[in-house]
Each structure stands twice: as C-alpha cells, then as structure tokens.
C-alpha cells in the first residue's frame, strides 16, 4: 500500500570553513589518506588497503599504531595499522608490536598487537605471548592463545616449544595445551549447527 507522506523537511545547510589543502603540511594530508584506507570494514576492502599502502608510508602507519587510544574511527585505524605491520612481519616492528601488546591501555589494541606478533612468524615473539596467555583479561588471553596457534602454524610447533621455558609456569602450561591440541590428529571441522541462548530477563 502506498504511504501517504508529509513532505520530508529539507535539512538546512551551513558553509564549511576549510583550510586550503595546499597549505596543509604533506604529512597531515598523507595521514588523512592513510586513515581513509585503514578505516575499512569488510574483507575485500582490507585486501585493497593492503595493496595500496606503499613501503614509504610505513613510518606513518607505525605512527598511527602508536597514537593514544582514540575516539570514533581512530581505534579501528590503529587496529588495522597494527594488523598491517603484523602481516608484513618485519623484524624492526617486533619491538613496536611487543610494546603495544604489553603496555597499551586499550585491551583491543593489546589483542591486535598479540595477533600481529603471531602473524609475524617470528618465534622471538613467544615470551610476550606467554606473558599474555595467562592474563586475567579474557580478550588478551584469548588473543594470545590464537596468536600462539597462528605462530606455530607458521614456524612449526617445535620452534614454538623451544621458547616455552622463557615464560611463567602458567604461561607454559596454557601454551602447551594449545600446541598439544594442534599436534593431536585432526578431529575434523565440526559443522553441527547449534543454537545460542536467549539472555536471561535479569540482564535486560
């Protein structure tokens, strides 16, 4: 049935006051462009971002990764900058990723840096992962566990095991459990469909 509508109000406008782009420092313009590339949402666009960022832009990608915890879209730009550095796996970025994984105030950033360490494929990252895998922060511990799995797939289970003595006993125990599970015969991917639970009324 056709809707009988009132006319929709026209939204009023105000003029913007913009600084001419020619007078804006090049590094600011370059960062604007990088953030536009990094603030993507979907997998196919993440591929586009990876293909468009040039090695010369990596210092600025590192700068984005290191910025303060940000509002709005700033967090996603940071996360994706860290993901990019992790996927490149450059040795010079290991310290940066490790510092973010250990010292950043934002759990989501620490989790991203831990995953980046896993993706870097460098076994030297194991001690940082062992420190995080026993964390009381659920996200940090889960990300460290995943990162250890990703790292072991890249460098081999034995290479990761060789570094386990560099962690606490709790970290070593949890990491061993991840590696043992990987080493056991594949159980096959479960495709059994199950149903989530409805939240209890007391939560709503």
């Amino acid at each position, binding site marked *: *049935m*056709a*809707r*009988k*509508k*009132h006319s*929709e*109000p026209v*939204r*009023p*406008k*105000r*003029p*913007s*006051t913009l*600084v001419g782009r020619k007078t804006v420092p090049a590094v*600011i313009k370059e*960062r*604007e462009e990088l953030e536009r590339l990094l*603030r*993507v*949402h*979907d997998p196919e*666009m*993440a591929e586009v971002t*990876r293909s468009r960022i040039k090695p010369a832009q990596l*210092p600025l990608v590192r*700068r984005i990764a*290191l*910025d303060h915890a940000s*509002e709005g*879209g700033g*967090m*996603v730009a940071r996360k*994706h900058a860290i*993901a*990019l550095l992790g*996927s490149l796996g450059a040795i010079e970025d290991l310290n940066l990723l490790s*510092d973010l994984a*250990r*010292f950043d*105030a934002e759990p989501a950033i620490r*989790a991203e840096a*831990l995953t*980046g360490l*896993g993706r870097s494929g460098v076994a030297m990252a194991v001690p940082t992962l062992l420190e995080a895998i026993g964390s009381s922060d*659920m996200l940090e511990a889960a990300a460290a*566990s*995943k*990162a250890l799995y990703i790292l072991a797939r890249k460098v081999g289970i034995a290479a990761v095991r060789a570094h386990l003595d560099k962690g606490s006993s709790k970290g070593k125990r949890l990491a061993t459990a991840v590696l043992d599970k990987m080493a056991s015969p594949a159980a096959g991917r*479960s*495709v059994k*469909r*199950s*149903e*989530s*639970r*409805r*939240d209890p009324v007391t*939560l709503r």
Partner: protein
Amino acid sequence: MAKTSVSRVESVPVRPITRYSPFDSVPRDIRLLDAKAETLGIKPDLVGRVKAAARLGPLRTAADLAALGLPLADVRRLANAFLFTDDLRVAIGDVQPSQGRIMSDRPFRLKVSFASATRCTGLLSVLVEWAGEPFTVERTLSAKEMAKGNAYVSFSGKQTLPVGPATFHVSLSTDRGARAEFRVTCAVLPSNPFSLSVSPRDNFVTGSFSARAVRQGSSFVTAITVTLSNGNSTPVGMRNDFSWEFWDGPVGSGTRVENGTGSFGGSITVPAFGTWSGWIAFTSPSGAGIFNKLNDKEDLAVRITMTRTNGSSVSGEITVRTMFRFGLNITRVGAEGFSSSDYTKLYQAVDVTRTIYERRDVTFDVDRRNLSNAQAGGFTVITSESEARDLFEQWSGPDNNFIDVFVVHSISGTGFDGLAGDIPGPTSHAGRSSGVVVDKSGLNVPYLGMLIGHEVGHYLGLSHVSDAGNLMLSSSSATDTNLNYDPQYRTIIRHGWVRID
C-alpha cells in the same frame, strides 16, 4: 468508540548542557611525565621510583617505566595519562564552548585544550553534527599556539545553530604525523529564550525526522521525547500537565484526528541555561482514529503543548509514521567477557543502529542472545573470514527470520572489523552466509552502532557507495550514518525478512 490514551510518562535525568550525550569523550588532564609530574595515580613507593628515574634522565617510552619494575597495569595507566619526553603523540584533553554555553542563532567559539611534548604545528578540525547537513570548521595552529596548549575555533554568523543538540567531532593533526580526536555534544539553548521540542524516544542522533509508531498486538504505540530548553538566567517553573493533538496532515492545516491531556506528575522546573526532558507513550487501540490512520500507512503529526506557571504556553511537533521492520538476533559471543557496563553499551549501540534506520523509516526488533565462552570456543577472537563463516555455519539461528548479528570480542589481524555473509544475505539460517559479525570495537557506542548498521545494510542488499556521510561507505567513521531513499531504502524494503505491520 476506542480512543488513544497516554499509557506512560517519565521524566529523563537532566544532562549537563556541555556534556549532553552519554557518548561524549571524557575530559583528561594530560601532561608531561617528568620529575615535576604530580598525582601519578600509582602507589607512593612507585611514585618515588618514577620521579627518581625522571631526575636521572628523561623517560621516553612505556618500556622505560616497565624497566623500573612497575606493574604492567601501572605502566599502561601512566603511558595513557601522560606524554613522555620527545613523545610524538598529541592528546586533546577537553573541548568546551568559550562562554560556557551555545545560544541559538548566535556566533560562538569552542575552546580546545590539548597537549604535545614536541615542537610542532597543527591542523584543528571540527565536524558539526546537528539537525542540518554536517559541516566542518578548520584552522591551522602555529608552533607557538601548539605550545600554549589551547586554541579557539570560531563559528561565524553564517555557522550559527538552532535550538537542539549539536555534536562536535574535534580532531587535531600535527606535522609530526600524530592525531588525536575528541567528541562533545552541547544542547544549543534558545536565544528567544524558551522552547519546547519533540523528538523520537531516546534519540541522541541529531537530524531525526520522525517518531515511530510500533504495532503491539492490536494497538499502535507511539513514544516521543519532549525537551524544554531555557536560554534565560532564571529558572522557569512549568505546570506538569500537557495537551496532545494528532493531526492528519501538518498541524493546523490538516484534520485533527484525536487529542487529549496528560501529566508528568511532580513539579517541573527548567534550570537557568538548562534543559528538562520527559517522554510520553501513546497507546492507540484498534478502532481509534490514530490506529486507523496508521493502519492505512498514513503519516500523522503530533503536537505537544505545555504551560508555564506564569500562564504562557509553549509547543512543539513531530511527524509520526509506521515503519517497515525486520529483526536482529544480537548474539554476544563469549558472554562472560561482557561486563554489565559492556552489556549496557552494546544495547546503546544497537539503539544507535535503530535510530540510523528509523531516520529512513525502517525499524527493527531485537532478540538478545548469547554464546558462553565454552560454546564460543575460539570464536571470541576471529582471525580470518573463514572463521567468521564457520561461526555462521555453526551458530546461525534460531529460525525466527531475524538477521544474526554476532558481536565478538575482537576481529584481529585481518584489517577488517565486520563481515556480512552475503549481499543480500539469505532468508534462512543455514549455510556459511547467514549472519553478520562485528568486532565489539572497544564498545565505542556511536562507532559500534554505525558498524552494526553497515554490516546489516549489506545483509539487506546494500553495496558500498561513495556519497559523503553515507552508512555504506567502504571506509567510514561513527558520523557516516546517512541512508538515501533511492536506491537504499527501496532496496532494504525488498529483502525477504523485511515486512510492514
């Protein structure tokens, strides 16, 4: 004959006019971490250790603090609250109107307080979200202005704002490559100096056009928020009763369908330079004039009138309409990892998503669901598209014809923060395409609300666009929330899971 009645009223807690949204940034006092730094917020013996080290030489990184033997939690707190020597980062501490308030149709200035530890120049940019089209005001900052730690952004006579909420998204970029962001919302007060405005219930997103009438059983329920704004230096006493009128067509020029009165109860005083809000729910049973109009998909207008204790009255109005609707199964993945505060923020984000769609006359119902940590297993942190599709395959449902929205603790290492199973998504709960997944995004409410809206938009058939401010931009921020009529609205309503009452 059945009649519409006021089924519920409630006053809303008063919010400060310069921190008007619960989603605004929290002000911070950010300084340099050196031997003179006060109030570090850590144990006294550790303070001594930090200051002694700072006297011996500059602290340059968080690793320097960790080397002093500080617990990780303290290192994280200090690295976030302070800048180090030679730190390239920049931080915005606060943004406030320079006169303490913004008056309608008057030029104004915002004072931006910030901190940087190195010599640099900057670009200050303010994106304004208000009832009209968003606009931006920029200015450059010299090295001297950057060193001063605060600067003003002026809004001219052509950039004045009407009464109502306005959100300012402030960013500061430096020529050293750093950037900081801050968000603040102000209630713009009437210069005339008193007004009443009507908006959709619980609406914090500016620029909403209409309130929603929802079918509940054999009735329609319409919920609205009434806001009284006082731009004067003396409080205004109000009578607690109100009158309401629903019109077929614009108020005053169409036909009055139904009218009546109600009361908020208690006493109402609108503070000097402040606001007061309350919400009203109307129930229109089958057979009532309003029910019949809404059932015929006809738009209405509602006018609310209130009276000051001095006898003068004030009124405001808004369009009311029924909407197309669909459903979302919002499923927390790894439920134990969501605190009660996280839970509240998640559903505030879902409300933001709903407002985004309701501005385009589409609404949705929500089924609140969860997967425990044990059920979720490795799905709490998604590290590939394939894993996200495993999640859909194993956990889509129940078979209620709602879209599954899985909210995970993190999508890490991938470069994306959301995924829709397909464009459009299937009208079944089977296979590897049934659902969308989103990173909980630090539970930043406006951003997460936009992200859920974006991925659900894909599921409903929307592809990426390049129109500035649109929800379906491939790369976007919390402020990109517009949906157009053609083709976006027309596409959404064709999805098999979208219906109209």
